[in-house]
Each structure stands twice: as C-alpha cells, then as structure tokens.
C-alpha cells in the first residue's frame, strides 16, 4: 500500500480549478518530485494534502487514514512534516528554541499540560534538538536569534524545523531557492541523508531541474492543475507533454 495516495483530488477557487482530479501515489522510502510551471497548482496540492486547504472533491490517504477534514496539526502528528517555501521560522526565538518547539510537538503530541515543569527537565526533547542541530550543522549558531541568521541558514533552519517534527513523510517546498551553490550542495546531500539514514519519504517541490533529475526516484508533472505525466527522470525528460508544457516545447531543452 502506498504511504500517501490522492484520489480524484480537486480544488476550485471560485470558478478557477487549481487542482483537477489528481490521482497519485507515493511509496514509502522514495523521493518523488513535483514539477510544473508557475501557477500549475504545486503549492495548492501541498496545502490541500497537509490540511491548510480543504479539497472541493476527492480524498487523501496517508498510511490508510483519510486526511480530508483533519486539521494541519493533526496531520502533522500523524507524521507528515513540512518545510515551507519562504523561510517560515520564529524570528525572535533562538535557533535552538525554533527546533525545540517542533521537538516538543514530536515528543509530547499536540497538547500536554506541563506548564509547571521546566523545559530543560525533558531530556528526550533536549537530545533530539541537539541531534537536529548537528545534522543541519547549525550547532555553532544555536544561541543566535533566528532573525539574525544569514539567508541560507534561515532556509536550513526551516528544513530543520520540519525535521524536528520527526516526520515519516516530509514535504519540502523549494528547499534550495535563493541558496548559494555551496549551500545547495549541502542541502542536496542532506536530502540524500534523510532518505538513507533517517529512512524518510520525501516529497520535493523544486524549480532547479538539475537537482530534480539528479535526486528523484520519480517525478510528477503538474500543468494547469492536472497531472500530465509521471515517471522516472528519464521518462519525464523524454515525455512529449512535459516538453510541451514545461520545458518550453523542447526548443530550449
């Protein structure tokens, strides 16, 4: 059984159909990428799956559970993590605290009455926070305020928060946007580590085609809300509809 599956997923905004009857399945342990031109509905698809938007029609199944109608925090608690396109961090908190909040969510669930216990007494949370800090290589900046981080580090912290929620399936929305070549390289390496060492399933939205074709097991192509192609990187590269819709009719590709 697929880890994540959508059936006939449709989202309309007024008269506009942002998602049109999307059927797709993501298997456990694979890395799938979603590509498509601007306005293809990529963000809408992620938002609909993770509970930010409710679909007009269709179903979303995660490990057999229907996600439709669930709130974002409930979906996150099931093990669906998310890193945002724009660095959606907590600017006034330190880097460590940013990760810690997510660690508490992962360790303690969506709500727990513990306002009379000091947070430094929760060892498991502290350990997880430190582990993430090391993995993302932010431990030297752990006590800095998140807002004073350089741009690339903010993006990495964004990914770190997603990781700290301890997901089985992680949605990464353009994780390398605006990064320097070195930072991009580090992020690509991190994605590889997440798959192999952390055993995660990754759903990547990315504009950098080199990265997409390099790391993906399979690629979905979205165009005007419809899934027009799916397959291995080789299949997608040669797919006529993709070349037509996305790679500019093949002339530039």
């Amino acid at each position, binding site marked *: 059984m697929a880890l994540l599956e959508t059936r006939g997923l449709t989202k309309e905004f007024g008269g506009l159909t942002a998602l049109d009857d999307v059927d797709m399945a993501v298997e456990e342990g694979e890395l799938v990428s979603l590509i498509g031109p601007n306005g293809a509905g990529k963000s809408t698809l992620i938002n609909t799956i*993770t509970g*930010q938007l409710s679909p007009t029609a269709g179903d979303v199944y995660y490990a057999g559970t229907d996600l439709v109608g669930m*709130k*974002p*925090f409930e979906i*996150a*608690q099931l093990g669906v993590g*998310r890193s*945002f396109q724009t660095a*959606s*961090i*907590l*600017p*006034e*908190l330190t880097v460590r*605290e940013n990760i*810690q*909040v*997510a660690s*508490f*969510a*992962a360790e*303690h*669930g*969506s*709500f*727990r*009455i*513990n*306002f*009379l*216990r*000091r*947070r*430094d007494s*929760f060892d498991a*949370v502290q350990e997880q926070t430190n582990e993430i800090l090391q993995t993302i290589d932010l431990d030297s900046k752990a006590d800095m305020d998140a807002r004073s981080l350089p741009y690339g580090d903010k993006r990495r912290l964004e990914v770190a*928060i997603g990781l*700290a*929620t301890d997901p089985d399936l992680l949605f990464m929305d353009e994780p390398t946007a605006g990064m320097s070549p070195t930072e991009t390289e580090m992020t690509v390496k991190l994605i590889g580590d997440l798959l192999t060492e952390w055993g995660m399933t990754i759903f990547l939205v990315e504009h950098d085609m080199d990265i997409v074709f390099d790391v993906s097991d399979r690629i979905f192509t979205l165009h005007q809300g419809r899934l027009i192609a799916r397959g291995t990187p080789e299949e997608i590269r040669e797919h006529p509809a993709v070349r037509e819709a996305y790679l500019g009719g093949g002339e530039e590709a």
Partner: protein
Amino acid sequence: MSMDTIRNSFDGDSSVLSWETWNRIKHTERFVVLSSVLFVLLFSYAFGRAPVVSDVFQGYHGLAMTILIWSIFALGFNLLLGQTGLLSFGHAMFFGTASYAAALFAIHVYNEPLVVVLVGMLAAVALGVVSALLLLRLHTVYFSIVALAIAQFLYFLAREPLVEITKGINGLDIPRVPLLGIVDLNHEYSGLVGTLLVNNLYIFIGIFFVAVVALITRIRKSPYGLIFKSIRENETRTAFMGLDVWRYKFAAFLLSAAIVGLAGGLMAVNTQFAGVERLYWSVSGDIVVMTVLGGLGTLAGPVIGTFVFFYFKGIVNGFPTLGNYWLLLLSLSFTAVVWAYPDGIWGMLTDFTAALRDPKELLTKTRQRIADLVPNGGDR
C-alpha cells in the same frame, strides 16, 4: 532592576567572567523569586517612608498595596499579550467579575479573605472558559474588539439589570474579618517589621505577588513559555509543527484570567469593596498602557509600568498646578518611551545597563538609534 545598577557601581570594569556568572544567575528562578521577595520587603518603605527616597517618590503605604495588586493584574495580562501575542481590550472583565464574585461570596456565603480571593479567581477562570470559546475563533483586531464588547456588556449588565445583586453604581461593601479566623489583616506592627511592611494586609498581598511572580517565571521556563512565544511569532508554522494552537491559546487565556482574577479578588479584600467601575473599559485600557509602558513580554516590565502609571495617577496628580495635567504628562512619557524604546522602560533600562558595561557599544547604539529615529521614527 536596581541589582544591575548596584553591581555596576561595585565593579564597573569587572572581568568578562563575572558578567557571565551574573548573566547566568539573573535568569535563574531562585534569583527572580528572591528579587520579588526583596522588592515586596522594601517597596512600601522606599515608596512611602524611607528618608530621602520617599521624599522623591512622595508615596504612601496604601498606594503601595494598590500598585502590588495592579502589578499582579499587569503580569496576568502580559502573559496573554507579551508571551502569546493576544491583545485583549477587555481584561477588565476578569478583574471586575472576580471582585464581584469575591464580594458576593463574602456577603452571602462565607467571609474569609483567603477563600474570598480564591473564589474571585475561580469566577474569573469560569468567565475565561466562556469568553475564550467566543474569542479564540477571532484574530487580530476582531479578537481585541470583541473582548472589549464582552467586558462592556458585563459592565452594563452589572450596572442596571443586575442592580439587585450588584447594588449598581453604589457597589458592595465587604466587612473585614480575620484571615483564617485568626490573623487580623489590619494589625500594625512596630519595630523593623512595622517600618518595612506596616501591616498584615500588606504581607497578605505581598505573598500573592511573590507567588504570582514564581508561577509566571515557571510558566516562562516550561514548554508553555516556548510554545506561547512560538504562537506569537508564527501561528501557522506552530500548527504545522503538530501543536494544537487553539488549546495552547486556551491555556494561556485561562492562566491569564486566573492571575487577573486573583488581582480582582485581592482588590475586593484590600478596599473592602467591589464596584462596577472595575469592569469599565478604561480599566482594560489602563492595563494595556501599564504593560506596554513597562515592557511587553518581560517579567519586571509590567511591574515597572504599573508603578509609573500609579505614580502619575496617585502622586503627580496631587502636585500643585502640574497635577491637573497628570494624564497629559503620562501620555507624553508613554509616547516618548515607546517611541524610542519599543520594549518599554525595562527595555530602556536593560539597554542602558548593557551599554554601561561597554561604553563604545552605547555610543554606536545611540548613533544608530538617532539615525533610525530621524527619517522614519513613527513606524513602530
């Protein structure tokens, strides 16, 4: 606040090591609670009776007690606004309701100061549950305005339709009875205790003040302290981390209501009175001013803000000529402080003491501040 300055005068150019030690100590719970005990021990004396200092303040014991109670109010309000980022323009509802509940319980059921204060607190929590169900669906300005509407609704309800119960604008009088049946709250001490604390009522209020400081310090150091801030910074992100934002906001709201209710109950015991003016909208406004003036999101800020507010209202008000303009003077001070220091008086003080350790830093910071202020000063 004063500890910082004292230490500065002792070892102005001390080694880095001792500053690090100090930075560690000043954030420990024990230090914060001990400071609040010391504050309670010295506050009334310094404010009303100490040589020289009190001549500057021109305060008096009764006002010191009022300030302690309102400080509890401001601390409870700050938990919601400063920590969680929810701006309620209706917090008078908890203060006034708790006062009424305390008075009604004392008159009709059982009159004992401790029980009465706790009854006030529970009434505020009950009101908190109901109002949170309405308010937590709303965001930003809608939250603020509907909170104000609920408080005003209760004000008019208490004033006219419920006049049989609340005695309308005349209010309710509570006879003073001994605490736990044995401790006379009016009893005045002699000697050192008398000099510092004057009477049992002050000690009674002071104990609650310290307890509230300890509670809030613990909340700030608990997972809640972090999660509240996370909600304040980015609610959507917090939800996507897997946290039930609604329930945490609900918790913040009830904790805030409980602390404010405690202040309302104490006010009823302190003044032996409960009246409709404690529900009035201007009370909700005053508490916003006190908290923001002192420093949002900090522990000392609301207490300082409350002190400054009552200094203007209670002392400057009595000055010849100048007294007529106390509200104007307060407004001007408020505007000046918040304009230059968005983190309030406490932010100003911490900036200043930090700069004293490093005068060069002060110079660059001051230059930066002036540069920031001149072209687009009013943007905060």
